[in-house]
C-alpha cells in the first residue's frame, strides 16, 4: 500500500523542503488544468447570462475612454504629443491593452476572494483559481479585440497605418507579456489582500492614477518630469511595444521590454510560491 499518496501537515515550514514544495506545486498545477477550465467557463457564462447587451459590456469602457479623450483633445482641453498613428487608433488600442493589464492585475485577488467559501470548505488545487481567472481575462481581451478588429481593418485599408507581417506576429507575444506582467503584480497582492480589504480599495485608486503615467491615451512627452516617470513605469515598455507591433511601428523600449518580461517571470514564480506557503495560514483566518 506504499503507492498511496501521502500528505503531511505539520509546523515544519514547507520552504525548508524546497524539492517537496516544487514537486507539490507542479503536481497541483497539472491537477488544476481541467478545473481551471471548468471554472473559467462558469465565470464567462455567468458573467453575461444575466444581461441583454452581453459581451458588448466588455468593450464599453474602451469606447468610453476613447471618446472622452478624443473630445478633450479636439476641444483643446489637453495638449498631447503628436502620435505616429491616428490618435483614435492609438487610444483605442492603448485602452484595450490597458484594460487587459488592469483586469489581469485585479483578477487573482478577485478570483480568490470570490471563492472564499469554497476555500474554507473544499481542498482543491488553489492554482486553478488563478489560472481560471487569467483565462477569463484572456477571453475578455479576445472579445474586445474582435470588436476592435473592424476599426483596425478600416484604418489599414485607408492606409493610415502600415501593415508589417513581421511585426504583427510579435503582437500576440506582446499581449502574453502584458498579461504575465499583470499576473506577476496581481499575485503579490493576494495574500495580504485576502486578509485586509484595504488592498482592494487601494488598488482601485492606484489603477486610475497609474493609467496616466502609462502611455495609454497620453503619449510620452518629449521631456519633463512626467516623461521620466512614464519611462520608468514597468507597464510602459510592454504596453507600448505591443501596440507598436500591432500598428506596424518600431518599438521604442526594447531593453525595458526584455527586462520587464524577465522580471515578470521571476515575480510570478515568487508570487506563486508565496501564495502556496501562506495560503493555509490565511484560510485559517477566513472563518469557518
Amino acid at each position, binding site marked *: *500500500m506504499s503507492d*498511496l*499518496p*501521502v*500528505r*503531511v*501537515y*505539520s*509546523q*515544519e*515550514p*514547507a*520552504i*525548508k523542503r524546497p524539492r517537496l514544495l516544487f514537486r507539490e506545486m507542479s503536481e497541483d498545477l497539472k*491537477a488544476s488544468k*481541467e*478545473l481551471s*477550465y*471548468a*471554472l473559467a467557463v*462558469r465565470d464567462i*457564462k*455567468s458573467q453575461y*447570462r*444575466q444581461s441583454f447587451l452581453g459581451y458588448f459590456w466588455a468593450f464599453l469602457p474602451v469606447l468610453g475612454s476613447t471618446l472622452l479623450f478624443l473630445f478633450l483633445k479636439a476641444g483643446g482641453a489637453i495638449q498631447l504629443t503628436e502620435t505616429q498613428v491616428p490618435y483614435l487608433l492609438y487610444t483605442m488600442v492603448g485602452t484595450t491593452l490597458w484594460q487587459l493589464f488592469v483586469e489581469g492585475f485585479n483578477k487573482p485577488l478577485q478570483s480568490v476572494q470570490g*471563492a472564499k*467559501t*469554497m*476555500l*474554507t*470548505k*473544499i*481542498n*482543491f488545487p488553489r492554482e486553478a483559481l488563478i489560472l481560471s481567472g487569467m483565462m477569463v481575462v484572456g477571453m475578455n481581451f479576445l472579445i474586445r479585440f474582435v470588436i476592435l478588429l473592424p476599426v483596425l481593418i478600416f484604418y489599414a485599408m485607408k492606409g493610415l497605418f502600415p501593415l508589417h507581417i513581421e511585426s504583427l506576429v510579435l503582437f500576440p507575444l506582446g499581449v502574453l507579456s502584458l498579461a504575465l506582467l499583470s499576473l506577476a503584480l496581481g499575485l503579490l497582492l493576494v*495574500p*495580504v489582500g485576502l*486578509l*485586509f480589504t484595504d488592498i482592494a480599495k487601494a488598488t482601485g485608486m492606484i489603477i486610475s492614477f497609474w493609467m496616466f503615467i502609462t502611455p495609454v491615451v497620453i503619449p510620452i512627452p518629449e521631456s519633463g518630469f512626467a516623461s521620466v516617470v512614464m519611462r520608468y513605469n514597468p507597464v510602459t515598455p510592454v504596453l507600448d511595444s505591443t501596440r507598436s507591433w500591432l500598428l506596424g511601428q518600431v518599438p521604442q523600449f526594447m531593453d525595458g521590454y526584455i527586462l520587464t518580461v524577465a522580471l515578470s517571470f521571476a515575480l510570478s514564480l515568487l508570487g506563486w510560491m*508565496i501564495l502556496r*506557503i*501562506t495560503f*493555509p*495560514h*490565511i*484560510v*485559517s*483566518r477566513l472563518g*469557518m
Partner: protein
Amino acid sequence: MSDDVLIRVDAVGKKFSHTLRKSLLYGVADSGNALLGRKAKSGSLRKDEFWANQDIQFELKRGECLGLIGHNGAGKTTLLKMLNGLIPPDAGRIEMRGRVGALIALNAGFNPILTGRENIFIIGSVLGFSRKEIQQRLESIIDFAEIEEFIDMPVQNYSSGMQVRLGFSVASQMDPDILLIDEVLAVGDLGFRVKCLNRIHELLQRSAVIFVSHAMPYVSRICNQAMLLEHGRMLEYSSQVGEVIERYHAAFTSGEKAVAGTGEVEVLEVSSPLETKSEELYTHEFNTPLELTVRLRINCDYEHIGVRINIWNPDQRPALDMVTRGYESFVWTHQRSEVTLRVKTAAVTLAPGKHSVSIVVFEAEHITVLCRMDNAFHFGMSSHISTGCEAFLAADWEISEEETIS
C-alpha cells in the same frame, strides 16, 4: 490490508483568536514565519488566543469509522479542516495516506444563475473529477439527487434542500481512501437521508471514515469508535461507542423541571423507592421493573382525573408511555386533595443513557391538561451493549437449517 493506518494524528493543536483584528494580524505573522522558514512557537498562546484543538491524538485504519461528537464549538469542524489540509496545525503532526474526500454541505461552489447540470460539472471538477468522468456519472448523479425534472433550471430557483442534495450527489460519486463527513445527514428529507446512509455504508467498507454528527443514533449505527471533544480537547476516545455517547449526553446539564397546565394540580414530589440518597443519578438495573412514587395536590373538583407518565430518551425523544396493564390511562375518582401514586412497571429494557420522566395529569372526560411536569425525575440505564434504538426487545430465536438436496 485491514491494518494499514491511513490517518495518523499526533498531538495536534490549533489556535484561534477571539478578536478579528488580532486574528488577522496573527495570520500575517504566521504567514511571515512560514515564508522565512521559521517555526512558530507552538506551546504558548498569544494575547486573545485560545486552543480550538489541543493534544488530539489518534490513528485510523481502513474500514474503521470514527465518530466525532461534542457540543457546538467543541472543535470538531476545526479538526476536520486540519485533516482535510485546509488549515495547518499549530502543534503536532498529521499524516494522511491516500485520496481524501469530504462530504460536506457542498453548495459552496454553486453558481446560482447557472443550471443544475452546469453546476454538476463545476462541483465535479472542484472535487477532482475529469470532464469525462463526470459525463459517465451524470446519470447516476441526477438519479441520486432525484431532481431530473429541474436539472436544467438555474440553481438559484432550487430550495436549499435541493441544492444540498445536488452537492451531496456529486460528492457521493467519490471513491476516496479517507472520507470526512460533516453533518450532512442534518439536511434533506427522510428518503434522502436513508440513501446517504446507504452510500456511506458502501464507502465504509474500503475507506477510513471520520463522521461528525449531533445525531447520536447515526453515530452508534455507523461508527466503531467515537471521540468526545470538549473545548478542543479529547474528553473521551474509545471503541465503546455507547459509553462515549453516554458521556456526551451526561455532559449536558440535567434539564430543569418545567411545569405547564392550568395549575389546578401540583406535582409535589417524584421519587423512586429504589434510589439511594447518596447517588447523584439513580441508575436503573436493566431488565428490572422501575418503581416511582408520585405525590400530587389537587385543587379542583373534577370527578375523574387521569395520569400518564412519559419517559424521554437521552436524545430528548419520547421513548415510552406508561399506562395500565390493560393499556389505558390510569384514571381515578377524585376524593382527597392529596394523593400518592405508587407505580411499578414491567421490566424496563431501555437503551443505555440518561432518561427523563414527565408527569401528565389531566381531567379524564375532556382530556384537559391540569398539570404537566417535564424533567420531573431522571434516571440512567445500565446496559452492556450499545444501540441506536430506544429500547431492546428480547425475543426467542430459533434456527432451522434446511437440508439441501445435492
